[in-house]
C-alpha cells in the first residue's frame, strides 16, 4: 500500500462540472478524504450545488442534502437533530457553503446554529465572491478586488470595504474550534478537519479556494496563488481553540503586490492603493499576533 501525503480514499467522483484549476473542487476532495464516508453534507446554493452534475448524477459520494441558499447551517442543525432522535451516532454533519451562503445570506443561520452549540462542522469554502452566479461581490471579497458588481469603472468603484472576517465572528460566538485553511496546504487542511471532527460542539473552518475564473488567474497557478495569499499574510493560517490563538508564521515575507500581480482582479490598482492595502494587511497581521500573545498570557 503506497503511503500518500493525505488520505487515499476518494469520496468525490471525477466528471464534475468544476472549472479547470478550481480551488473549491480540491477543497471538497480533501475535506471528504479527511472526514470519510460517515459524513452527511448540507450544501446550499453555491458552486458545489451545480458542480456535482445534473439529476440523476451526483459526483459526491456521501449523502448530500442540497438546500436553499440561506439554510446550510439550519439544515445541518436539522440533520443532526434527526440523527440524534434516531440514535444514529458517529456521523459527521458537514455544512459546506460558499462565502456568500456563509457570511451574507447565510450568516443568520450560521450564527443561530453555532450559538445553539449544534454538533456540526461548518466549512466555508471561500472563493471570495458569488462565483456560481458569475463573480458578484460578497462581504468576503477582499478590498481592492474587481467583481461584476464592483467593476471599477471611471469612479474606481472596486471593492472598497475590507473583507468580513468569518473566523472572528465565530470566535465571538465562543465556539470550541475555528480555523482558517487554504487548499494550497492540503495536509494542514486535512489535519484541521480531523481535529475539528474530534471536538464536541460546533466547529468552523474557512478554506481559501483560488478561483481562476473569478480571480482572472491562470488555472495552472491556482495552488501557487493560494500559497502567496498565505505567505503575504493576506490570508494567514491560524486556529482559535477556546479563545487561544495559534498563528502560523510564514517562512519569508511576501509583498502584497506580488500576490496581487498573479490575478487580473487586482490589475486596476495603482501603487498608492496597493500600498494602502499593504498597510491594512500589516496592521491586521500585527493585531492577529497580539491576539495570539494575549491569549497565551492568560
Amino acid at each position: 500500500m503506497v503511503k500518500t501525503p493525505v488520505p487515499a480514499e476518494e469520496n468525490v467522483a471525477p466528471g464534475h462540472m468544476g472549472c479547470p484549476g478550481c480551488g473549491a473542487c480540491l477543497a471538497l476532495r480533501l475535506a471528504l478524504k479527511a472526514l470519510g464516508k460517515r459524513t452527511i453534507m448540507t450544501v446550499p446554493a453555491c458552486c458545489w450545488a451545480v458542480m456535482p452534475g445534473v439529476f440523476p448524477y451526483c459526483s459526491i459520494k456521501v449523502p448530500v442534502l442540497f438546500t436553499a441558499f440561506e439554510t446550510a447551517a439550519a439544515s445541518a442543525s436539522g440533520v443532526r437533530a434527526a440523527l440524534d432522535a434516531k440514535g444514529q451516532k458517529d456521523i459527521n454533519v458537514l455544512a459546506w457553503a460558499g462565502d456568500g451562503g456563509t457570511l451574507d445570506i447565510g450568516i443568520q443561520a450560521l450564527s443561530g446554529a453555532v450559538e445553539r452549540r449544534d454538533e456540526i462542522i461548518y466549512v466555508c469554502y471561500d472563493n471570495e465572491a458569488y462565483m456560481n452566479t458569475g463573480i458578484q461581490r460578497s462581504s468576503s471579497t477582499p478590498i481592492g478586488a474587481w467583481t461584476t458588481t464592483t467593476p471599477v469603472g471611471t469612479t474606481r468603484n472596486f471593492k472598497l470595504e475590507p473583507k468580513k472576517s468569518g473566523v472572528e465572528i465565530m470566535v465571538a460566538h465562543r465556539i470550541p474550534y475555528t480555523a482558517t485553511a487554504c487548499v494550497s496546504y492540503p495536509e494542514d487542511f486535512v489535519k484541521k478537519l480531523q481535529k475539528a471532527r474530534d471536538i464536541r460542539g460546533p466547529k468552523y473552518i474557512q478554506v481559501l479556494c483560488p478561483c481562476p475564473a473569478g480571480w482572472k488567474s491562470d488555472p495552472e497557478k491556482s495552488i501557487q496563488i493560494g500559497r502567496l495569499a498565505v505567505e503575504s499574510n493576506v490570508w494567514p493560517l491560524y486556529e482559535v481553540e477556546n479563545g487561544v490563538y495559534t498563528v502560523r508564521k510564514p517562512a519569508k515575507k511576501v509583498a502584497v503586490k506580488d500576490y496581487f500581480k498573479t490575478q487580473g482582479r487586482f490589475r486596476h490598482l495603482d501603487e498608492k492603493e496597493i500600498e494602502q492595502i499593504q498597510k491594512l494587511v500589516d496592521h491586521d497581521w500585527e493585531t492577529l499576533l497580539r491576539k495570539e500573545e494575549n491569549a497565551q498570557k492568560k
Partner: protein
Amino acid sequence: MAKKLINGNYAAAYGAKLARAEVIAAYPITPQTAIVEQVADFVSSGEMKARYVTVESEHSAMAACIAAASVGARTFTATSSQGLLLMHELLHWASGARTPVVMVNVNRAVAPPWSVWADQTDSVSQRDTGWMQFYSESTQEELDTVIMSYKVSESPDIMLPSFTTEDAFFLSHTYEPVEIPAQELVDGFLPPFNPEIKLDIDNPRGFGSLSMPHQWYMELRYLIAEAMDRSRQKILKVEKEWKELTGRSYGGLLDEYRTEDAEVVLVNAGSAASTIREVIDRLRAQGKKVGLARLRSFRPFPTEEIRALGRHVHTIGVMDRCYTFGDGGAFFTEVKSALYQLKDRPTVKNFVVGIGGRDITMKTVGKLYDNLYKIKSDGLDEEKEWVDLKRPEVG
C-alpha cells in the same frame, strides 16, 4: 381517553406529542407561542422523546424540519402570519423535496399595520406551495387533524407536507373540553415514519440536485400534482379510520351542515363556522332553509364536493376571511372556478368578512343569509361585498 379543558394551541401541542414527532424546530410568534412552550414542556419533562431545536427564525425552522425529514425523522413546527410568510420560500421547498413535514398555523393578519387577530390571508396566500392545508373549527378538530395529517402526509403515495390552521384567539386561546386520545390508540393508528429513501451513509445520494429544461423538472412537478390529486381520497380514507377508532370525524374535505335541502348556503372556513351553525339552527326553526358548507380542506380543493353542492343549491355566498386581490377573494374565485363546468351554474356572491380579526357576529351571519335570500328572488346585487366595513356616509 382523558378529557381536558384546553385551548387550540395546547391541542396542537398534544397532537404533536401523541403523533410522536421526533424533531421539532419552531420559533415563537403571537398567538402561537403556547404551542412551542407546551412542546418545550413536554420535551423537558421527558413526556416527549424529541429533539427540540430552538431555531433563530421561522425560515430556519422550516429548513431544519425539511432536513430532519430527509434523514427520516417525523417533524413538527408551528407558526403564524409573518412567520409563515417568512417560511414561504421553504414551503415550496418542502413540497418539492416531498418531505412530509406537519405544521400548525395560527391564522393571523399580515402586517403592516401590526395585527395579531384572526385573518386567513397568511395561510391562503400559501395555496400555491404544494402543501395540503386544513381549516379547523374546534379545538378537538385541531388535535385530531394534526394526528390525521401525519398519516396522510407520510403515506408513501402522498409524501406531501401539510398544515392545519386555527383562527387566532378564537381557537388558539379559547378553552374547550377536548378528548385526548390514548397514546396506544394513536400508536395503532399512526405507524412510525419510515421513508424508503433518506439521507443514509449506507446509501449515499444527492437530495435536491439540478435539472435542465428538457429533463426532468416538469415531470417531477407533475408527480407532485398527481400526489395532491390522490390526497383527496387519502384524506377521506384516513378520516374514516379515525372515526372507527374514536367516533369522531369532521366532514371530509367539505363539511356540510343542513345543505341537503338548503335554498341558500354559505361557504366558510375556520372558527366562524360555529357561529354560522348557531344561526342556521335559529333560522331553520323559523322555516328558512339555510345551510353551511365548511371548507375544511383548501388544498386539495374539494372540487367534486363543491360541484355536487352547486347542482342542487342555486344561491351560494362564499365568505373570505382574507383578501388576495384577485377577481374577488381566494375562496370565492376557486369555488366559482369549480362550479364553472356545471350546466346550470348557481349564483355566487363573495362576502369579504372578518378581516384583521373583525368579529363575525350572529347578526352579521343573519344579514348574509338575508342578503342571499334577496339575491335568490331578485338576482345578484353586487358580486363582491366587504361586510361590516366602515364606509363613508352617503350624501
